[in-house]
């Protein structure tokens, strides 16, 4: 189904910073390239500048002097949002309470002078696409949160935008609905193939939806990469801890081995290293019999989660080590176990942050 008509525009954000009137720096000058048809996720804790970045791309905020926003190479910096042909889904959805669902979806088309007939058929198409058939004549106040989210998405896509911008579109929903809609949204975005910029603070959303993820911290881009790169090869302690669970270990190194209270853990990297800041993901650690791994520790606690069990191991490192073990292993708190970690599962982080 060709819903957008094209695959959208490419976006270039050039040294865009944002300082608010009161002097707070929301965004340090940053440069970003987003390919045509790509889904880029801006991820970070609140106050990291991700929404400011989105609003600059949308045309709702002007970047500080020197910043530029280009769509398909064309400078859009001073073009207001209404002339940028972007579709936007707001965190609060911004649906018009004075219009029905169908009028909301068709509003952008009405503005563009699309005839009544064509408008109705386009609305019908989108209603079907977003699974809200039957709600066309409802008022916005009569919709549930999930239905509102779908209407907001349908409305944003109806105008065949060059770029789709989503500002935490699932945050206002409860957890179960969020998970379901995340999957739906993912399929829809893939089907549309449109350039999409998606803002979220939820790393699971970022992983599932993004072709690339931009991790942001305090107004600065911390790392840009595919979900795999961000997860397995974080370039800083912040990224490692923000994405998924991570064991961060700071220890001296000798002959390519971390010297830990519970033994020696071989690592890759430079043989002349004398100290390291290392990250190990909980699911990359194997629980084996004590003595059959170079590193060992004592189980402090076990929480059974269902698909896996989370073990907290003491004595192996100076801090507790978290292990996600298969749910079939039978081990109790107080037992001594070996921790089997492949050298390439130990990711060395630049020290200092």
């Amino acid at each position, binding site marked *: 189904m060709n819903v957008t008509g094209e695959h959208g525009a490419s976006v270039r954000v050039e040294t865009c910073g944002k300082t608010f009137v009161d002097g707070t720096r929301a965004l340090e000058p940053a440069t970003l390239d987003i390919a045509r048809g790509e889904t880029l996720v801006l991820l970070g804790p609140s106050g990291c500048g991700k929404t400011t970045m989105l609003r600059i791309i949308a045309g709702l905020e002007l970047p500080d002097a020197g910043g530029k926003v280009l769509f398909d190479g064309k400078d859009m910096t001073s073009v207001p949002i209404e002339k940028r042909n972007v579709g*936007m889904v707001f965190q*609060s959805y911004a649906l018009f*309470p004075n219009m029905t669902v169908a009028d909301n979806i068709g509003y952008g088309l009405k503005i563009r002078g699309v005839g009544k007939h064509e408008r109705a058929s386009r609305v019908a198409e989108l209603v079907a696409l977003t699974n809200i058939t039957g709600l066309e004549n409802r008022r916005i106040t009569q919709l549930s949160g999930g239905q509102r989210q779908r209407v907001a998405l349908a409305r944003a896509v109806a105008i065949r935008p060059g770029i789709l911008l989503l500002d935490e579109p699932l945050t206002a929903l409860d957890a179960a609905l969020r998970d379901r809609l995340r999957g739906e949204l993912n399929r829809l975005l893939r089907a549309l193939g449109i350039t999409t910029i998606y803002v979220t603070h939820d790393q699971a959303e970022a992983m599932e939806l993004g072709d690339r993820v931009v991790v942001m911290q305090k107004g600065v881009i911390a790392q840009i990469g595919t979900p795999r790169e961000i997860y397995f090869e974080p370039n800083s302690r912040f990224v490692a801890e923000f994405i998924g669970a991570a064991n961060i270990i700071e220890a001296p190194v000798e002959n390519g081995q971390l010297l830990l209270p519970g033994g020696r853990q071989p690592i890759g990297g430079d043989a002349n290293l004398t100290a390291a800041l290392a990250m190990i993901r909980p699911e990359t650690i194997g629980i084996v019999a004590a003595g059959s791994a170079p590193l060992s520790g004592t189980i402090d606690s076990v929480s059974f989660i269902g698909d896996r069990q989370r073990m907290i191991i003491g004595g192996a490192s100076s801090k507790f080590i978290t292990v996600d073990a298969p749910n079939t292993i039978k081990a109790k708190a107080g037992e001594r176990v070996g921790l089997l970690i492949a050298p390439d599962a130990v990711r060395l982080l630049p020290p200092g942050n």
Partner: protein
Amino acid sequence: MRDRLIFAGQLLFTLTVAAFLVVPAILSISAGVTVNYFRGISSGVTLQWVFQVWDLYAGTILLSFVIAFATLAVTLLVGVPAAYALHTRGGRWSRIVEEVITLPIAIPGLAIALALILTYGGFGEFRRSWLFILVGHVIFTMPFMVRSVMAVFATVDIKTLDEGAASLGASPARRFLDVIVPNAVPGILAGALMVVTLSLGEFNLTWMLHTPSTKTLPIGLADSYASMRLEVASAYTLIFFIMIIPLLVAMQMFADRGQG
């Protein structure tokens, strides 16, 4: 037994207070339909005073409504966009402007009128026309329109709705008409009723600004109290009452709906 005594006491007190307030109104209204007030209702009931008032003051009453609706038109055209601008801009300057708009509520009408006369009294044509009173009424009623519209804007997150419409390609003017105004309707209605009622009943300002040919309802009322028999003045009150009550009822109904 004790509870019933307390209840009876409270009821008696309430009724006394209510009577204290209501009896003068009833007396005044009844005086307007009595043949001779000093001989009491036994002198007979008549509508002659009401007709006399109508004959004498029909023009005044009409002008009152013209001014009230002109005031409404101006406060709508200026007040609603002003409320929108003040709300979306925000910041210190908006607060200052809001305070300045609100000032006329606190400043005595006489002082405003005096300032207007000092400044524009020299423009004879303008001074003699009803537009002079209109200016005074607009200054006095504007804060009520701006405030009630702003109160609605604060509850419906108008800024995000505006951004939503903008993202769909709507120009600022289009957004204002399609999204802002329809969603501010409860506040606009409440403000409109307030403006019309206040304008119809305004005395302080108007008394200073009026000329013999530009009188409004309350000025005519004062005039008739001062120069005619009590029955005529009372009949005037009755007419005033009949005109203003439906507006007050409508205002209350909208206020109730706005809360619900």
